[in-house]
């Protein structure tokens, strides 16, 4: 289950600029601070950067950036619509749906939109073609362009559960594969994805397809535990992984041991400091604080450039 060591990082397929995901396992380790600071350092280094805030249940990267007004696109997902005159009430769709989004009531079938994961399986298994695609709004994608920095975020509609579907829509836009007007590929040199916390479906959807994964952790037992889970999750996707220790202090050993055992390099340490917390409270990313933070991010950009040089 060991993740591939970073030195195996392959050059991204021709024609697509490096796509880096930032995740953590544990919440509150500083993913977003790191993602924003890294994006700004890359801009400083003369790059055109796309920052994707994929923490769709609570996007917040924009709070650290003075971005002005955003453009917004509504994102919809498949929802089964059943034609009552065609439906025979055979129950094949009800049987198929793992999420119980379809229910048989006598010879009628009822759809529960908030349980539907939009897999389209019900439509496939219906023997009489009684199911067609409807659409349900799952959230919005907002985007901003500010000089060389392009920022976009997904915001899941309250009560919705389809985080992965919205994250996939964000990725399609980011890769210039979306059909709608929001899909114009921003011309960029580097993409940074700020993933949601955890190691469940949403986090996996956010890191999938990345060329490189940076895991942000903290030197605590919880940080170590969830970092281990995140490394295992990354291994299933065969992503090259490197670790950043945030709030680095004299307990770093707990993380160092794990990284050594898994052969994962630690590429940056951000010292624990009240200064960072104060800046955070004012909506300023730690990269704006000067040394050692600013220099750490400048070095990180150089390091990442080196991976694909």
């Amino acid at each position: 289950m060991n993740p591939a060591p970073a030195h195996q990082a392959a050059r991204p397929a021709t024609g697509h600029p490096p796509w880096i995901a930032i995740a953590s396992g544990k919440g509150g380790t500083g993913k977003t601070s790191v993602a924003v600071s890294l994006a700004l350092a890359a801009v400083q280094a003369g790059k055109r950067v796309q920052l994707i805030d994929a923490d769709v249940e609570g996007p917040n990267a924009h709070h650290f950036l003075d971005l002005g007004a955003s453009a917004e696109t509504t994102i919809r997902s498949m929802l089964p619509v059943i034609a009552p005159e065609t439906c025979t009430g055979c129950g094949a769709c009800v049987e198929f749906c793992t999420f119980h989004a379809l229910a048989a009531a006598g010879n009628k079938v009822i759809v529960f939109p908030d349980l539907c994961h939009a897999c389209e399986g019900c439509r496939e298994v219906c023997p009489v073609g009684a199911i067609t695609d409807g659409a349900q709004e799952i959230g919005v994608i907002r985007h901003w362009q500010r000089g060389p920095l392009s920022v976009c975020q997904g915001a899941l509609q309250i009560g919705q559960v389809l985080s992965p579907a919205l994250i996939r829509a964000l990725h399609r836009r980011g890769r210039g594969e979306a059909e709608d007007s929001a899909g114009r590929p921003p011309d960029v040199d580097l993409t940074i994805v700020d993933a949601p916390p955890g190691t469940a479906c949403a986090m996996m959807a956010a890191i999938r397809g990345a060329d490189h994964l940076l895991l942000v952790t903290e030197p605590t037992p919880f940080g170590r535990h969830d970092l281990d889970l995140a490394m295992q999750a990354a291994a299933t996707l065969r992503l090259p992984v490197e670790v950043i220790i945030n709030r680095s202090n004299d307990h770093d050993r707990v993380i160092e041991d794990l990284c050594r055992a898994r052969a994962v390099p630690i590429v940056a340490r951000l010292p624990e400091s009240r200064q960072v917390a104060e800046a955070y409270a004012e909506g300023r990313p730690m990269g704006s604080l000067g040394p050692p933070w600013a220099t750490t991010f400048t070095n990180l950009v150089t390091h990442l450039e080196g991976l694909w040089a």
Partner: protein
Amino acid sequence: MLIGISIRGDHLDAPVDLRLGRAQMFLLVDSDTEQFKTLDPGAGQIQHGAGIQTAQMLLKAGVKAVISGDCGPKAFQVFQAAQVPLYSVTGGTAREALAAWRRQELPVIGQPGGMGHA
């Protein structure tokens, strides 16, 4: 006619389980003969859609009325589509509930209670 009653136990003198979606057990009682059998919904372990599953199971078993404490929004929708009425009790045994239903003293649940689970 067959009536489904949510209970904690396995006989007519068992207390009514006031939760429908996550009821421990159901008693399927023939109101003409008072003969009954039990139905284990096995829904206690389901993460999502327990009420929907339970409602479908009861409909499949052929119940024409249901007695419980409360009914979540999703199960309510299933029973409503099948036009199966839901009756509410606040406690007591299945036998008492059945007797009250015969005397037409049980209120019909006209709208879902609880929050269900999104």
